[in-house]
């Protein structure tokens, strides 16, 4: 250990020695050295590949599962990023540092890019932090001046039972031996949201092994601020002709089909919708359509999810207004009330009211992760939000074979909701392999229509491994078809992004 330390000192100098003496960092200071353009490009692309893996693996396996650990370990090693503190880590840590800052340039420009970047960097950070030994975690906290208030021994004793009842994996001995931190609840939102922490008088009591959540919160806040600042100084960077093409390539590679630009506008007639709902709608939309027909009403969540989907398949604003009005009028709403109360919201969806945002149809990720349905709602993802028994009955009603139903239920149990929907596609269309990776309801519709109309009457879509939405979706299992498309569309850069 001593020899290599001396060696390093001779080659680089004290400043950088300090900077890279830890496996993990907060990326507080930008790198100050000069690097070649080749290194610039290689570093950026490799980190992007890493982040993409972080995203894919995070969705297809649970974030704390063994599979996740194994896959990420493998990817980090093969891409030469720092990992679990080895001896010759200096080069890797330098790469980690520089590549992070390069990607900040590429991903600071829009809200969606920032969100995606922050999410993956956080997942990566969490993973690496959790790999550290307890002592190294404490070292990290000290080195980065993260002083979280610790709870006194006496208070710990008084609250011991409550602490044990609130935190998973916390025993009496752990409470006594290790620190418990007290932070304002606003700094521990992830733990509060899932009720995995004890709250008293506005403070969250965090056991040592959960401190990563707090650190992550800190990480997110800092990175978010940094990205906003980076965006402001971006024009200066972009004026450098050497960098501009690379940076724009990097950020565009992950903006996928978002169905905001309607193809096939006006090609669907309202009379077709009932039939289409049975043949080409994904289960969530079929469910919503049925509920609408039966109850002559849908609540806000359902109107948004279904309304935007219909926009995505090509309904015009006039058609949409007619569609909703004719259905609501059959119920408790008279035409006048519809025009006053509901028409506004339909026009809003099409970007004709308010701040005139043209809302994009929801991706699967968004449907699965946000706004869960409650009593009286019909939106959401049936594979995620329905009781398995009811889901089974519904599939039986739709004449899905018993073995098919079992396969679907297995996937649901494993939390692979998009794969379950894909299986539903395969069973209802009588194909072995869907031939695409499902991550958007409109994609389901398009693919279904393609299949049923025997050919490609719809324009070829761009690589769909990313969504430019609130919760960027990801590929639940990379497929060859997507890689090929991406390659054709994106040119040379994409040779770095081949999946398997």
């Amino acid at each position, binding site marked *: 250990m001593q020899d290599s330390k001396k060696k390093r000192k001779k080659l680089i100098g004290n400043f950088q020695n300090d900077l890279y003496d830890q496996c993990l960092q907060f990326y507080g200071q930008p790198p100050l050295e000069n690097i070649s353009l080749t290194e610039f490009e290689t570093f950026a692309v490799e980190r992007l590949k890493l982040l993409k893996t972080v995203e894919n693996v995070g969705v297809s396996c649970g974030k704390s599962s063994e599979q996740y650990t194994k896959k990420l370990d493998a990817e980090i090693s093969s891409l030469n990023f720092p990992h679990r503190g080895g001896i010759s880590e200096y080069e890797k840590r330098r790469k980690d540092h520089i590549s992070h800052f390069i990607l900040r340039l590429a991903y600071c420009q829009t809200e969606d890019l920032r969100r995606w970047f922050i999410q993956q960097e956080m997942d990566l950070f969490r993973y690496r932090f959790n790999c550290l030994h307890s002592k190294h975690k404490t070292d990290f906290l000290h080195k980065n001046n993260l002083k979280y208030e610790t709870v006194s021994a006496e208070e710990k004793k008084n609250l011991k039972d409550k602490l044990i009842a609130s935190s998973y994996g916390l025993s009496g001995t752990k409470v006594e031996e290790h620190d418990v931190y007290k932070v304002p609840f606003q700094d521990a*939102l992830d733990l509060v949201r899932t*009720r995995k922490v004890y709250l008293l008088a*506005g403070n969250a009591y965090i056991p040592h092994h959960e401190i990563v959540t707090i650190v992550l919160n800190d990480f997110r806040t800092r990175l978010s601020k940094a990205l906003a600042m980076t965006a402001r100084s971006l024009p200066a960077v972009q004026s450098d002709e050497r960098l501009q093409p690379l940076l724009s390539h990097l950020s565009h590679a992950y903006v996928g089909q978002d169905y905001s630009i309607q193809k096939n506008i006006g090609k669907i007639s309202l009379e077709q919708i009932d039939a289409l709902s049975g043949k080409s709608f994904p289960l969530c939309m079929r469910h919503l359509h049925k509920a609408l027909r039966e109850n002559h009403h849908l609540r806000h969540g359902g109107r948004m999810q279904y309304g935007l989907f219909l926009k995505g398949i090509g309904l015009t604003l006039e058609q949409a207004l007619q569609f909703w009005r004719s259905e609501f009028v059959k119920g408790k709403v008279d035409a006048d009330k519809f025009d006053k109360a509901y028409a506004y919201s339909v026009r809003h969806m099409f970007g004709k009211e308010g701040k005139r945002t043209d809302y994009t149809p929801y991706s699967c990720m968004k449907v699965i992760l946000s706004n869960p349905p*409650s009593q009286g709602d019909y939106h959401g993802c049936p594979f995620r939000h329905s009781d398995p028994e009811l889901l089974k009955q519904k599939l039986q009603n739709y004449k899905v074979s018993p073995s098919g139903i079992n396969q679907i239920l297995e996937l649901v149990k494993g939390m692979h909701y998009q794969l379950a929907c894909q299986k539903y596609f395969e069973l209802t269309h009588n194909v072995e392999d869907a031939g695409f990776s499902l991550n958007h309801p409109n994609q389901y519709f398009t693919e279904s229509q393609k299949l049923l109309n025997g050919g490609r009457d719809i324009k070829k879509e761009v690589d769909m491994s990313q969504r430019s939405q609130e919760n960027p979706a990801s590929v639940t299992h990379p497929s060859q078809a997507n890689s090929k498309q991406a390659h054709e569309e994106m040119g040379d850069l994409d040779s770095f992004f081949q999946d398997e």
Partner: protein
Amino acid sequence: MPTSDYDPACLPDLLPLYYRRLFPFSQYYRWLSYGGVSKNYFQNREFSFTLKDDIYVRYQSFTTQNELEKEMQKMVPYKVDIGAVYSHRPSQHNAVKSGAFQALEKELVFDIDMTDYDDVRRCCSAADICSKCWTLMIIAIRILDRALREDFGFHHLLWVYSGRRGVHCWVCDDAARKLSVAARSAVAEYLSLVKGGEETLRKVVLSDPIHPFINHSLSVVERYFQQYAIVDQDILGSKESVDKVLTTHIKKDLTIYYQDEKNPMKRWDRLCSSIKKGGQYFDKEIMLQYCYPRLDVNVSKGVNHLLKSPFSVHPKTGRISVPIDLKELNTFDPFEVPTISLICEELERPTADEAEEDDVKDKENEQEAGERRRIRDYKRTSLAKYVKVFDRFLEAMARSWKGEMLKKSGELETSFSVFLTFMSFTYT
């Protein structure tokens, strides 16, 4: 106490009277100014009005209490909603550069609506409520009030009856008003236990370890469960209802027992004692599914979400959205809440003493006289006791504003004295 029969057709006549003589403008203004600790807090607040014929106007804002009064008396809104405090005056939002007009602060709010319990109440459905299902609101208030105060450390909570089928909670602490969207949503999710829509049968799932919050909530529910669910709602009475309870947790041996035993209380006891294995909490899950508060997270999440204002009138029932005194919660009766027709009628009843006072006080300026008259006015009506609840709430908050102002002026004082000391050193 009889509530004068309310007829929505009378609103156009009653509302002007209400806004001129009964609406507690000075307390309302005092509330929303929050002691003047932050500049322009009231001026940058968004109000929205629903006018006659369902005309809806947003981005209303006012510079003074007087302007608020005059506008409301002029426009005579059927419904008043309160929104966020923005970066600029909402009424001028079009003049602001796009993107610069932002919602900055707002109270943390909760909306408990009885329709969200339709799958578990048998006495009523949709917009109807009765004294039996009102218990659900009492349970909701007790659970949420405790949690917001003890777990989250909030102090200034205003509970308001919505006028028809629910209650609202306004958390007015400074820290609450400054919460981000993510924080609001985290608080709402922490407080949510009943999850799932039409398709979910088992809406509450408990597993070890049971969080202290859940235990606190259970102890409230347990106090009311037997009377409310077993007796009043009779959930273990009819076959249909029993089936619904039992499908949440399929227990075949119970079904057999129930064929012979018809007494609902005995059925419940049997259900509880049938839980043998540890880690199973069927009885608790059922109690929570039938009684635990159901919040709409979307209402609480948004900083710019508009919520019905306290003292607004409910156009369908005519009832005033009145503050609820938690000390009298057990005796609060939503059907005794005054309607606008009642209080307007009470206003018209003559009282001898006041005629003389009027002559004396004519010399005051108009606004003061108007206010004094208004204070006398609502005191003559059933609205009085509810305004008192509001007053007490304001008093408690005022003490905290005083603290804030002192802190701010204290900072000024310290820096001034440092300056003086520095000057004195410089000149020696």
